[in-house]
């Protein structure tokens, strides 16, 4: 109806986000180049940080956007890891290919578990995901070909012959173990950037709006024909795929797997929840801030054993009680800065009050 360039437009871009995008690209390039100048220990720390970031983004998408509070994400990490081990140890596949297939296998598992957990509402969904994770852990512990309850190791040869390792080793003169770490790290950078890109794209698309509508008021969303079950199932499966990939990647790097470690609620869910809550739930920036705080606390409190977890838990409780939007929420409240804005903003200049209303209605339809 209104086609002049001055017409109202709906956008999610802000000044801060426009400045931030080139910075993000530069950060990804710098991260990819890090193995050239950083030590092997630093690369291993960064690998851990990036995989935790991916898990945190996934959990945040589930809990912060889709309203699916899961305490059973470890099932996808563990299953992804075990699927990768099976494909490498039993079928002799290249680990890189095995990671991809493990992601698909984890999604298939999620199709099954969704049949059960989606029957439970709210808090009982959380308990359901936890029970499912325990069931899969106990079943995997019966799998004697992969070491049963005690677990097994990846043949050293398998990781060394992984796609890209020989290349990295030749290009930088790394020993093969270091080259494996480097390739895993690069994969983690790609996975983290891809995950954030995927989530941001999803939230800016129609599906993101549907997701926000369902989160804010499920009944009202259904009244305007948003299929809440479908959008939640999509998010659940997408998160399972990414978490499965991450689990497989983590266990290529670790090269040793056992049911208790791979399905650990502490390592793959508790830390992840703390990262998201402290950083800021329901934002993409939150988990990034959270993972940085998490790494700083871990370094500072490394020598204090269980005090570390105790302090992390207390911080998470205090944040949840007094600053529900986390550290990033506090920052945004004061500055208004958002690097990944998803709020639809109306921009442009109206040229008459009558047309203004018409244009608004027109644009609102297109959202």
């Amino acid at each position, binding site marked *: 109806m209104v086609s002049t360039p001055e017409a109202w437009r709906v956008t999610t871009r802000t000044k801060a986000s426009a400045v931030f995008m080139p910075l993000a690209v530069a950060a990804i390039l710098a991260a990819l180049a890090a193995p050239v100048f950083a030590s092997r220990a630093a690369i291993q720390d960064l690998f851990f940080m990036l995989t935790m970031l991916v898990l945190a983004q996934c959990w945040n998408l589930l809990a912060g956007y889709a309203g699916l509070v899961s305490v059973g994400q470890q099932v996808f990490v563990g299953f992804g890891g075990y699927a990768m081990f099976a494909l490498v140890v039993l079928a002799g596949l290249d680990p890189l290919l095995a990671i991809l297939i493990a992601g698909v296998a984890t999604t298939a598992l999620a199709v099954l578990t969704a049949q059960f957990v989606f*029957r439970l509402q709210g808090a009982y969904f959380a*308990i359901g995901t936890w029970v499912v994770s325990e069931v899969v852990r106990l079943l995997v512990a019966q799998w004697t070909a992969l070491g049963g309850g005690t677990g097994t190791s990846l043949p050293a040869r398998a990781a060394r012959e992984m796609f890209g390792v020989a290349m990295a080793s030749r290009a930088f003169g790394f020993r093969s173990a270091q080259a494996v770490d480097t390739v895993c790290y690069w994969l983690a950078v790609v996975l983290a950037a891809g995950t954030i890109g995927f989530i941001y794209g999803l939230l800016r698309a129609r599906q993101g709006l549907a997701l926000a509508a369902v989160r804010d008021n499920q009944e009202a969303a259904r009244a305007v024909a948003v299929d809440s079950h479908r959008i939640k199932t999509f998010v659940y499966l997408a998160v399972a795929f990414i978490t499965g990939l991450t689990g497989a990647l983590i266990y290529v790097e670790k090269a040793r797997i056992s049911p208790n470690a791979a399905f650990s609620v502490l390592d793959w869910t508790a830390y992840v929840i703390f990262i998201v809550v402290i950083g800021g739930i329901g934002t993409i920036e939150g988990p990034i801030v959270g993972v940085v705080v998490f790494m700083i606390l871990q370094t500072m409190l490394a020598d204090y054993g269980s005090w570390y977890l105790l302090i992390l838990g207390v911080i998470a409780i205090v944040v949840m009680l007094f600053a529900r939007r986390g550290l990033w929420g506090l920052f945004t409240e004061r500055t208004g800065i958002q690097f990944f804005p998803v709020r639809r903003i109306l921009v442009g200049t109206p040229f008459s009050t009558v047309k203004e209303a018409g244009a608004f209605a027109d644009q609102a339809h297109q959202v």
Partner: protein
Amino acid sequence: MVSFADTLVQGVLLGGLYALFAAGLSLIFGVMRLVNLAHGDLIVLAAFLILSLITALGLNPFVAALIALPIMFALGFVLQLQVLNRTLGPDILPPLLVTFGLSIVIQNGLLEAFSADSRRISVGLLETASLPVGPISIGVMPLLTFLSAVAVIVGLNHLFYRTELGRAFRATSDDKVTASLMGIRPERIFAVATGIAMIVATIAALYLGARANFDPTIGPARLIYAFEAVIIGGLGSLWGTLAGGVIIGVAQTFGAAINPEWQILLGHVAFIAVLLAMPRGLFPRPTD
């Protein structure tokens, strides 16, 4: 046939222990719709409290548990008033995440205070005493556990449906705003409910500690059985919770009879099977 009956009886008795773990959860959920992920750790905390009273004062375990009751009540009261009340509302995230954080805090606090060693509450000869019933012998401690579970559930039902306080519980649960217009202070009522749940948790802790070894980190593993009992029993139904506990207990003992590694697995499978057949549990409330 005898071994079948024996397994069944042991399973039912084990179900009593799970029902004891679950009764406190069921009470809290029934009154304020709060899912307390730290309940298992609070039971372990109570077990350590009883153990400390026994070693410090040289008390009989049952007397020590009696002294622990008011302490745990006060802890529950303050916890609800100062922390958990702030999380209640339409959003389910805050209560889940705060109690999850609390669970990690209690576990690690206990690890610092008591180390990771396995402990046990010794109840002397009672530990091994048993009653022969026909061809089956029933352990006195498992029997006491089951009877305590039944007594707790009868007591809670009486409290709910026959007392002034119970009427306040039910009124607040049905409609917090109207209840507060009638002179009820919901925050206080919730604090009393959590205090009572901690009394039940202390009773559960006594049997937990007397029947098996415990250490600071076992809370969540026990909590999961309790949740299963509450959910398959039907949310908020106390007798349903006992039935749920018995189903999990029987499934576990039959699992263990087939293959020791299947004990826990079969309990979870029973939980999933019941929920697939009856998504709202065995005894659901008409509205919820």
